[in-house]
């Protein structure tokens, strides 16, 4: 055994721990360079198992505290009212709140139903949202990445709910991201503004194709749009379906700014979904291969989701590499 004096023991241990982690990093880089399917390392399972239950409990507690706080404020606001009308006011307020809740829920369900009608060709599986025929899984956001530079979040659905990698995650406002890791009862979602993210997209008006890539900032960029193409600020961007993750025609965002640059324009995009205020999301299973076969076939004349009025050829830009599905 190597004899190390107690004076140098901390330094020796430091060198050992750092060196071990460098080796671990090198191993992971080498493993990913081989292009193989990346398995979830055991330590990620342990970390998710350790942290996500606490996050789940925290989300639940916060929602309860929020409910209590709202109730307290509501009760206080009635204190100054006329004493004789107080009882009646309380009853009416409660009734009103109940109706508001029901109205909000109805509105949410209408949004989901509209979405379902707009994408009848997209086979989706899931659990619980809009009746037995529907197949979208609703999920609650229970936390985000502890790494500030990684724009990911955890949701309370996992392998047990039939969630799989590369499923699209959306809200009725627009796309959110895709599932990148699946754990038994939770899953990790890579948001579209993460710097590792890319989404096949096109302009709703001009039908110019490109790739919306995350930058790590709140506003992603639309890449691979040549300078000859005119881009208007405020123009809507929708999914093109080329990434085999998101069905065609879902809102991605709107153009905030477009500047000519070499070789492509620099276009900043405001995401349609509020990525920094997500609470509930929907998960779709977009069967990529089926979608692609459908896209290659002549589209039905009245299909609302496949953009039959103006079918676009798939650009062959070698640089455009949107989210590629993993097997």
């Amino acid at each position, binding site marked *: 055994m190597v004899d190390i004096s107690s004076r140098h023991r901390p330094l020796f241990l430091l060198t050992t*721990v750092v060196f071990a*982690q460098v080796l671990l990093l090198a191993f992971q880089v080498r493993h990913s360079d081989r292009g193989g399917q990346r398995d979830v390392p055991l330590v990620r399972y342990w970390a998710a198992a350790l942290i996500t239950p606490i996050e789940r409990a925290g989300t639940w507690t916060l929602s309860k505290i929020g409910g209590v706080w709202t109730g307290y404020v509501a009760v206080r606001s009635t204190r100054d009212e006329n004493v004789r009308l107080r009882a009646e006011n309380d009853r009416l307020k409660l009734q009103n709140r109940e109706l508001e809740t029901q109205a909000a829920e109805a509105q949410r369900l209408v949004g989901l139903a509209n979405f379902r009608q707009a994408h009848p060709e997209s086979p989706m599986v899931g659990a619980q949202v809009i009746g037995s025929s529907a197949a979208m899984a609703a999920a609650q956001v229970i*936390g*985000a990445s*502890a790494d500030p530079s*990684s724009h990911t979040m955890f949701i309370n659905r996992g392998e047990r709910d039939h969630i799989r990698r590369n499923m699209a995650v959306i809200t009725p406002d627009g796309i959110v991201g895709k599932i990148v890791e699946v754990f038994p009862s939770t899953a990790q979602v890579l948001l579209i503004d993460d710097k590792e993210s890319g989404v096949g997209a096109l302009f709703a008006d001009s039908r110019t194709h490109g790739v919306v890539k995350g930058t790590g900032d709140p506003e992603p960029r639309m890449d691979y749009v040549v300078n000859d193409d005119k881009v208007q600020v405020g123009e809507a961007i929708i999914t093109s379906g080329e990434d085999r993750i998101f069905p065609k025609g879902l809102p991605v965002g709107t153009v905030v700014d477009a500047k000519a640059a070499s070789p492509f324009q620099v276009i900043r995009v405001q995401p349609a979904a509020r990525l920094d205020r997500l609470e509930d999301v929907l998960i779709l299973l977009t069967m990529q291969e089926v979608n692609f076969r459908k896209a290659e076939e002549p589209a039905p004349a009245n299909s609302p989701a496949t953009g039959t009025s103006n079918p676009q050829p798939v650009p062959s830009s070698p640089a455009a590499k949107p989210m590629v599905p993993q097997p």
Partner: protein
Amino acid sequence: MFNPGMQSDTNVEVHKYYGGTIIGAAILALVLQAFLHKFGHWSEMIELPLLVTIYFGVSRRNPVSGLLLGAAIGILQDALSHDNPIGLYGIAKTLVGYLASSVGAKIDTEHPISRFGLVFVLFHFHQAVLAITERALLGRPAPIFNLHLFLSSLVSAGFAVLLFALLDRLRKPH
């Protein structure tokens, strides 16, 4: 070999904590970081796991426990992210934990101004190690210094003064 009470400089006071405090605070920091992140990008200015690593490194003044705590927090942080290979934050926080405990054994780290300065410096050291590791081992571009990082270091250092005062209350009375 591992003795949390071991101290090379006998003149410096070593603070002790109730059982489970350090592990609880580390897990809480990771959970809160994730929670804050959920409510907006502004929370990226503060890195709670780094502050907890520095605080306990400085308070325990033991390089061995400092570097092991830093490694554990860093590896957990890597594990909870998607695009980071495991070890990236681990290496940075191992070094920060070691440095914080070494510095804590030599200078007064109880005063708010020295705490502010220490966190400010270690924040940039942490970022520099991260950036160098990312560039050298992963071939990814990463900034060592920019305005956003400078502002983040100021906000983190200011927040650390308050947080450290709060964590001081968890110490065992002498």
